[in-house]
């Protein structure tokens, strides 16, 4: 009964606190303006939801940390006389009292934080390009919530330690912000708020969000390879693919056929200028779980191979037009610069196939992969060039997994691997050993710090057929950023600091 009475009394006192009232007003205003401006901006320039929410959560942690500190640090030191005379001289224990302090403040602060982050999360999820899942969203909110709790617990602990509130309020931010380099120095980056701030977008972002990895084109079709299985309904909607030529000409695919086995989509019914480039933008394509393609990897520029010698070509600048008059109008360029051009020669292989307007997807794919005009780099087996799947690292080695069997000679050349950290510092490997069975290379002799992500970029490595590695998927990042480390990194100190505060308070003279 004493515990619940103290808890209720603390809640009542907090509700009358002007610090809390002022915070709520300021938070509501800033939340409204920040979210509305961010969301408006995301309409102009698509912004991933993870970025929006990360900015919001980081803002909460950084901007409002001072208020949280004041709420925590002033809890005991500001009223030690009152506590002694009015509460602790009655039938309650010190433990009950400090627990009520901790719980009531945690209840209020976390409640405010959850409402704030919940609104931001919903807005980001609903209105921005969503690249989060419920679990990553929850994980991000949980981790920042734990950091908020740690901040609060530290504030209360300092409040127990020092009678001077100002000392506690000033000392706490110093401790909080100075901690980051110290934690980095001692190799405990996961205790550091700066590390959390840096890695929050990665925590929020669905690591399995579909990525557009590779594009290969003929004049009549475009094959797009994705990193994972897609939702066929969204993948086979041609409207989800925006194609833009060099002169701003827009192309519209008539068909989009999803190849489940290769996780690729073949856009057909196109008439693209040979030798030119086309920018592909994928929108609203989701994976099977409904996660949208990552905004960070939903666009690429694809080079259309030049026409074979002797074949008629369309001048790049003049745009293209169907021959034989059978190409549906939708396939014609809609750019004014291109629409006028209708005097070109017949298109190469692909163009001729596409001119029928009804090429089955399998044939289109086959035509693309077997096209003699395709550069060597894009003509791997199945039309998919080799790529780096992932990498894993220890402090002394790094393993790179490839999507297919590689040429051992290339794969075991250490100069073909650039290993670097986010600051650009490179780490040369001493040896590289290729494993044919697993299609992986083990790079050894490294001295890596795993506090930061490690990026490996593979160059000049070919597969067993001689196809060079995809320029779009020739790198991978290894990061030890895992949610549970942050959960432990902030959760355990929160518990320890709370216990210490209880012990200190039990021994303190009032």
């Amino acid at each position: 009964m004493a515990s619940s009475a103290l808890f209720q009394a603390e809640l009542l006192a907090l509700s009358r606190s002007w610090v809390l009232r002022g915070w709520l007003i300021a938070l509501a205003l800033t939340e409204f303006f920040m979210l509305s401006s961010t969301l408006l901006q995301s309409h102009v320039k698509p912004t991933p939801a993870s970025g929006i929410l990360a900015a919001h959560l980081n803002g909460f942690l950084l901007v409002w940390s001072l208020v949280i500190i004041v709420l925590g640090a002033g809890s005991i030191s500001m009223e030690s006389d009152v506590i002694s005379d009015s509460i602790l001289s009655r039938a309650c224990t010190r433990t009950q009292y400090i627990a009520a302090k901790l719980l009531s403040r945690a209840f209020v602060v976390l409640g405010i934080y959850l409402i704030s982050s919940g609104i931001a999360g919903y807005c980001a999820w609903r209105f921005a390009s969503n690249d989060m899942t419920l679990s990553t969203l929850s994980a991000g909110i949980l981790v920042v919530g734990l950091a908020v709790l740690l901040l609060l617990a530290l504030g209360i602990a300092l409040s127990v330690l020092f009678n001077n509130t100002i000392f506690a309020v000033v000392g706490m931010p110093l401790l909080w912000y100075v901690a980051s380099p110290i934690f980095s120095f001692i190799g405990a980056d996961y205790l550091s708020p700066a590390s959390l701030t840096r890695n929050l977008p990665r925590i929020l972002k669905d690591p399995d969000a579909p990525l557009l990895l590779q594009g290969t084109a003929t004049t009549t079709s475009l094959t797009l390879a994705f990193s994972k299985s897609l939702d066929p309904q969204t993948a086979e909607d041609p409207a989800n693919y925006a194609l833009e030529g060099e002169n701003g000409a827009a192309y519209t695919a008539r068909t989009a056929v999803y190849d489940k086995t290769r996780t690729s989509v073949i856009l057909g019914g196109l008439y693209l200028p040979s030798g030119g480039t086309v920018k592909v933008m994928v929108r609203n394509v989701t994976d099977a779980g409904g996660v949208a393609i990552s905004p960070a990897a939903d666009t690429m520029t694809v080079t259309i191979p030049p026409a074979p010698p002797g074949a008629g070509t369309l001048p790049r600048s003049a745009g293209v037009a169907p021959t034989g008059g059978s190409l549906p109008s939708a396939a014609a360029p809609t750019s004014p610069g291109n629409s006028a051009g209708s005097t070109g020669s017949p298109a190469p292989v692909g163009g001729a196939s596409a001119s029928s307007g009804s090429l089955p997807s399998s044939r289109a794919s086959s035509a693309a992969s077997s096209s003699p005009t395709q550069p060597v780099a894009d003509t791997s087996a199945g039309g998919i060039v080799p790529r780096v799947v992932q990498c894993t690292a220890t402090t002394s080695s790094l393993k790179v997994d490839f999507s297919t069997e590689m040429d051992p000679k290339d794969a075991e050349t250490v100069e073909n691997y650039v290993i670097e950290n986010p600051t650009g510092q490179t780490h040369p490997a001493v040896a590289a050993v290729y494993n044919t069975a697993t299609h992986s290379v083990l790079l050894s002799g490294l001295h890596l710090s795993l506090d930061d992500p490690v990026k490996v970029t593979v160059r000049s490595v070919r597969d067993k057929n001689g196809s060079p590695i995809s320029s779009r998927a020739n790198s991978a990042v290894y990061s030890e950023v895992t949610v549970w480390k942050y959960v432990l990194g902030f959760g355990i100190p929160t518990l320890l600091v709370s216990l210490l505060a209880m012990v200190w308070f039990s021994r303190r003279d009032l």
Partner: protein
Amino acid sequence: MPILQTSNLTKLFGNRLIALNGVNLTVEEGSVFGLLGPNGAGKTTLMKLLLGLQTPTAGKVEMFGQRMSPNAAHLRQRIGYLPTNPKFPPTMTPITYLDLVGQLFGMGSEERKPRLASLIRAVDLLPAASRPIKSFSTGMTTRLGIAASLMNDPGFLIWDEPTAGLDPAGRKYTLDLLSELGKTKTIMVSSHILSDIDRVCDHVGILHDGKLIFCGSVRALKETIGRNSVEIELDGAESLLDAFCLRLGSLTEIVGFERKGAYLEVRFAVTERIAAPLGRLLLLAAEMGVEILSISSTRGQTEDAFIHLLEADQAHGFSRAYGALPPTTHGLERPVPGGTPRPE
């Protein structure tokens, strides 16, 4: 049966201040114990130690036969504490605060609400019952503190300077209440106002510079000065009073007197049983037609005894290091001013 017992209770604040020095104190159930001492003697520190609000540097406190500690809520359950110049949550009202206190004592709503209402009425805070405490005067806050200390109807009251900051009426009411409560409860009350202690307490302890220099009954305290005296307020013509004073010298039981205007302080040869010599003095006054307006016998004695003890403690000089007062159950043994030599 002792309700409270301390042994060798010592408190040092951060190696900077010696607040208490080896205090051995026993308070028997049913007594009204007054803790006397000049300002800074350590009275408040001793009371906070008794309640577990502070932890002793050495020694221990036993309350109801159990050791007191900061987390000994079950012991404080039986104690009503009134701090000196109490501070209460400023945004609370008397109703909400007493309600919280009642909840802390585990009282149910059916018991708590009527109790707080009657206490608020008793301490005359009804008009201010819904006002925030921060708007209260010192006297109102003290009255609220009195109500809070009685909320759980405790068997043992610890009141630290309850008359501090009160107006004369409030002071009188508080002392009357103490006298009344003393009939049913054990009380420990501290003060540096001797007359308050003299009026309500039957036993007394004197703290001086953190050391308990006396612990015993009020009577025993008075006896420490080794003489009995009374102060008599006279009425009559100046010549008549002079004649009366001349005749006083003929009474063998009177060893001295001093007249200051209408007041006459008379010292008797005996230290006990002064009724007979006082009776003869009164007969003499009646015979000479001198009117006696008042006779005061205690106030001066207590003050004298108190000052005598403080002076004696000072006079002991360095030898005080060996003058530890043994654990004393007041009233059961004769106290020794300045303590007794430590047994080696």
